[in-house]
């Protein structure tokens, strides 16, 4: 057997078609594939090397609905049996009557009394089929219609950075701006506070999205907010 060789280093940006490693002792994982002796990249992203396993953390691309994710959706249509919800992905999700409220909704009731077109809701994905039909529920802790405030859109791949380790980043922004913030896994973020604070929080969020790769990001953003407040 020929010897194995690694061509990339941790956290390096790789692009599709790049040869990441040669030889059989490395294993392709997410975002990579094997072609003969070589392992190649199939996505644009950050290289992650975990022992012998090579995978790519994507840096771009649309949100893909995943079961169990809590997302912020926009109601785009009201049907007989429920609501159609835009999830900021390629697919429109369905919220059916029986999952919409803990109250009983009688047949033929005016559904716009609960959610109208254009409303934003915090909701959870209960199921995603092979055809990417998405089912939602409103039953769960904290799931609700989002009234007033404003919505910020970010790349869904940056959501982990906005939340931070154990929510450190988002709670820091909450505390220092006094805003109420909810982050959806799909990249939609709801911010509510006084108009001035909202603008500051939105600015901070946009800064995180732009500078997500910096180390010591939380400190950086804290400094940014502090200097802005003064």
């Amino acid at each position, binding site marked *: 057997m020929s010897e194995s060789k690694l061509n990339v280093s941790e956290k390096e*940006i790789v692009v*599709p*078609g790049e040869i990441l490693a040669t030889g059989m002792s490395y294993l392709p994982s997410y975002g990579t594939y094997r072609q003969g002796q070589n392992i190649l990249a*199939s996505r644009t992203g950050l290289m992650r090397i975990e022992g012998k396993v090579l995978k790519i953390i994507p840096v*771009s691309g649309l949100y893909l609905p995943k079961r169990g994710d809590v997302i912020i959706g926009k109601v785009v249509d009201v049907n007989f049996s429920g609501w159609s919800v835009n999830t900021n992905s390629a*697919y429109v999700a369905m919220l059916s009557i029986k999952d919409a409220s803990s109250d009983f909704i009688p047949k033929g009731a005016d559904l716009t009394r609960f959610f109208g077109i254009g409303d934003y809701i915090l909701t959870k994905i209960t199921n995603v089929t092979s055809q990417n039909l998405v089912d939602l529920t409103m039953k769960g802790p904290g799931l609700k219609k989002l009234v007033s405030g404003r919505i910020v859109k970010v790349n869904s791949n940056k959501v982990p950075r906005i939340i931070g380790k154990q929510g450190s980043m988002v709670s820091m922004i909450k505390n220092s701006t006094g805003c109420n913030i909810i982050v959806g896994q799909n990249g939609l973020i709801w911010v509510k506070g006084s108009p001035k604070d909202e603008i500051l929080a939105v600015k901070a969020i946009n800064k995180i999205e732009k500078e997500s790769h910096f*180390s010591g990001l939380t400190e950086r953003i804290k400094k940014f907010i502090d200097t802005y407040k003064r």
Partner: protein
Amino acid sequence: MSYKKRIDGRKFDELRKIEAKVGVIPNADGSAYFKIGDTEAYACVYGPKHLYPKFLQNPTKGVLRCNYNMMPFSGSGDRVRPGPSRRSKEISLVTEKALLPVVNLDDFPNAVVDVFIEFPQTDAGSRCAGICAASMALADAGIVMKDLVAAVSVGKVDDALVVDLNYNEESFEGEVADIPVAVIPSTGEFTLLQMDGIIDKDRLLKALDTAKKVAEKIVKIQREALKNKFEIKGA
């Protein structure tokens, strides 16, 4: 008469000057700019998004849709009528077929990825520039793909085998063959092969060989441009 020296002074296997940039259009999900000589291409990718009308949907995988468009005064001659024409529809189709073997849209049934390629300025080789730009834009949009696609035209002007013909060479008086090809660099497979003119078999094979070599150079520039957009600066 024979073609000893190229009209613009290049070597026979030399490309025109290439410039590539990624992420040039903020509103698109992925975008790229590719300039080769005086031919400029902008590609923007939108999606994956839901596909309507419904009869175009494919329930097993996503659909790729390409659109090639020359802007009105992009050519060197008369005004080009923008929008679909016999020529632009054909090129849209071959662009799509050139890119389809590398993109993987299995995760997006019933969805579509739209690719729009615009040319503010052209000087031969526009379909190749378009394919180069489109493959970069797709990678920028985070689409799963086997490899980038590099495209270039090769051919024959009089007796000489040349790479990357410009308009003056295409319209050279004498025997000219213009062969636009697209290559998947990692496998060496061709995804586009068209020809204008006449060429014999030996020369054709030789030309295709050089195309593969030149594609390596192009894909290097494409990768560089992509990395430039995402590279960690000042961290």
